[in-house]
């Protein structure tokens, strides 16, 4: 399998009045084609920032300060002002025009809140037409309509409803429309930023299932950002656990749930409520994540870790591959290299 996306030493900084916070700190990732990568972690750990950096959409005052994001293109992308040649493209080197040609066409992004992600003033049909027109100015109205109806039909929304306005849809349907819009141009990479957070569990399950089907259908590669480990257990092939802007562990899903390596991952899995053991009290991780403006030396997790050693307080652990080909950033595994 070839890699679709390679991220090297990506660092994102937020310049605030108090100082500079590293939202994403030297993250390196390789994403194989047709795989689903789950990004998990608690709030503020940088998972959304990482997802947005791939689109070069880090919100102000954030800035990508370092790193390389290589995306594999299978075909040349032709847009009115030029051509992006196929092969690996460093997204960091692209200008605005080129980025615009890439967004939607190669990478799609689905936002967390479907209620406000659609323009209330235009119909769903217009949404589809706008997107198709933005990337293919010559497309005929009927053709765009046909394709849009086909996509909606595939997502379980009756095609007649295409002339409706967003407020006439329920939350789950709007998220389906958003997914449909994201997939309208057959992108290769889909980044879903907590796509089911604001939906109830039944709709959540439906949508996750549909996304899995669409993934097969369109040969999608997916990055699923969530704080819900249950969702990842169902859908992801690999899971990256993030903490304070760094990747703590990157393992295949099954291995991660069966045998979490990093103490943080262990603690996270501990704290997932278990229906089969009603007597068990909910556990949590004592303490709070460190202040990113004023980072502590050594491993960011050391004040909350059960296994803190002296080296943890002085040296930052790098990602190490263990003998099962799993990546972990912890001094506990330093010797097994």
């Amino acid at each position, binding site marked *: 399998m070839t890699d679709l996306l390679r991220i090297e030493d990506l660092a994102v900084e937020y310049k605030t009045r108090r100082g500079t916070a590293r939202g994403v700190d030297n993250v390196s990732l390789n994403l194989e084609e047709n795989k689903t990568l789950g990004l998990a972690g608690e709030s503020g750990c940088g998972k959304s920032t990482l997802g947005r950096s791939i*689109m070069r*959409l880090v919100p102000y005052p954030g800035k990508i300060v370092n790193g390389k994001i290589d995306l594999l293109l299978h075909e040349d992308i032709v847009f009115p002002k030029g051509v992006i040649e196929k092969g690996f493209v460093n997204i960091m080197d692209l200008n605005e025009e080129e980025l*615009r*040609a*890439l*967004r*939607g*066409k190669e990478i*799609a*992004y689905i*936002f967390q*809140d479907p209620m*406000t*992600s*659609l*323009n*209330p*003033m*235009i*119909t769903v049909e*217009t949404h589809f037409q*706008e*997107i198709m*027109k*933005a*990337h293919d100015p010559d497309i005929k109205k009927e053709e765009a309509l046909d394709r849009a109806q086909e996509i909606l039909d595939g997502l379980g929304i009756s095609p007649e409803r295409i002339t409706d*306005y967003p*407020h006439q849809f329920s939350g789950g349907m709007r998220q389906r429309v*958003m997914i449909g*819009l*994201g997939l309208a141009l057959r992108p290769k990479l889909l980044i879903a930023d907590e796509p089911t957070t604001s939906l109830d569990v039944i709709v959540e399950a439906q949508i996750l299932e549909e996304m899995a089907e669409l993934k097969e259908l369109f040969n999608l590669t997916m990055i699923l950002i969530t704080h819900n480990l249950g969702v990842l257990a169902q859908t992801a092939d690999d899971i990256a656990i993030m903490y304070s802007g760094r990747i703590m562990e990157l393992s295949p899903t099954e291995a991660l749930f069966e045998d979490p390596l990093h103490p943080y991952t262990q603690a996270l899995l501990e704290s997932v409520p278990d229906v089969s053991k009603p007597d068990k009290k909910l556990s949590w991780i004592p303490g709070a994540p460190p202040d990113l403006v004023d980072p502590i030396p050594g491993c960011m997790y050391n004040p909350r870790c059960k296994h803190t050693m002296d080296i943890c307080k002085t040296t930052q652990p790098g990602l190490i591959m263990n003998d099962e080909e799993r990546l972990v950033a912890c001094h506990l595994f330093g010797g097994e290299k």
Partner: protein
Amino acid sequence: MSQQAKAISGVFYFLIPTSGDWKEKSRNFLIGLSIVLIGVLVIVASFIGLALRSNSGIGIWVVGYTILCAFIILIAGAYRRFKLHEGLITPTRGWFLITVVFIVLGMISALVGFFWIPEEAASLSSALVGGGTVLGVIVILLYDVFPQLQDRGSAGYVTMTGLMIVLAIVYMTVVSWWIVPYDPTRLDVGPYGAPPSAQFPLGTTSLGQDLLSRTIAGGGIMLQVALISVVVCFSIGVPLGLGASYRGGNVDKVISLVMDSIFAFPGLVLAIAIAAMLGPGVVNMALAIAVVYIPSYFRVVRSQVLTVKELPYVEAAIVMGARDRDILFRYVLPNVLPSAIVVMSINFADAILTAAGLTFVGLGLPVTVPDWGWDLTFGSHQYIAGKWWVITYPGVMIVILALGFTLAGEGLNEILTPRLKE
């Protein structure tokens, strides 16, 4: 009710009970019908009464001719409906047909006016063409557009009411010269400051002008000033606000500073200064008012854009690779336009009053030009002496016109915003 019956009944369709208990519905039907009939009778009677006593002597013919034009347009509209119902023509060609009828009628009216009374202070041709067009537009609005609007509930009624008020005043103004009982530009047509009587139904001003004539003819200046100033304001203020806040940075800072400094002046004082600089005249008056009101559009649009451009759907559009142009005009502008339209409806009413103020300080128009604003401000002094009629009638007309603009603006706003649809 069948489609054909709906097509025939046109505007009266909504009055006819189509479902439910007839007795309950028929009361509303009768009330509605009587309101419409009484309204039509009052309007027709007053127009005929005016036309018969008109100064020009041909008032009845002018009114009759324009009504005839409207009738022809109504027939054309019904013909279009019929053809459309039978599936013989496409909607586009139907509207093309109506447009052709309008143009042909307009040309005939121009010729009729030209040969009938070739030379006169006010051109008969323009009165005939304008009056026919306005009545034709009213008919088309009632017959063809209204059945579509009424699906939108109260917003449709509000819009239609507003448009009707404005168009009725426009019609009155266009044909005013030919139906007024006395020459509105002349002084000394009657006694000074006489109360309403049989000869002068609304009384006279203290300069001996007939107030009825001036009230009928006085809308022209108001309409022109309000329309020009609002169009200028809207087309400068909204794009500036949109561009400045969308781009942000220094451009935004500079434009905001300029706008705020204009905003710092009291409106009327600034308008007086600009009008004094430009000199008297309708366009100059409109420009002076426009400058005063540009900042209010700018402020409202700017603050709205700042909110809207951070909303997820704008970001979603960026993510999907939408062009800046599309984001600005399809995503941001439609969402800020409702607020701008609210400002517009206030602006209309304000522009009318500011124009009245400018006329009062002598920067508007000469006293002989019939103008509600002039009568209102001039009459306010005579009100103390007990001459209530001088300010009452122009005041009522200004209120009605402002109300019409406000209703039309509000209704259109509601119709154009899909979220408020249900």
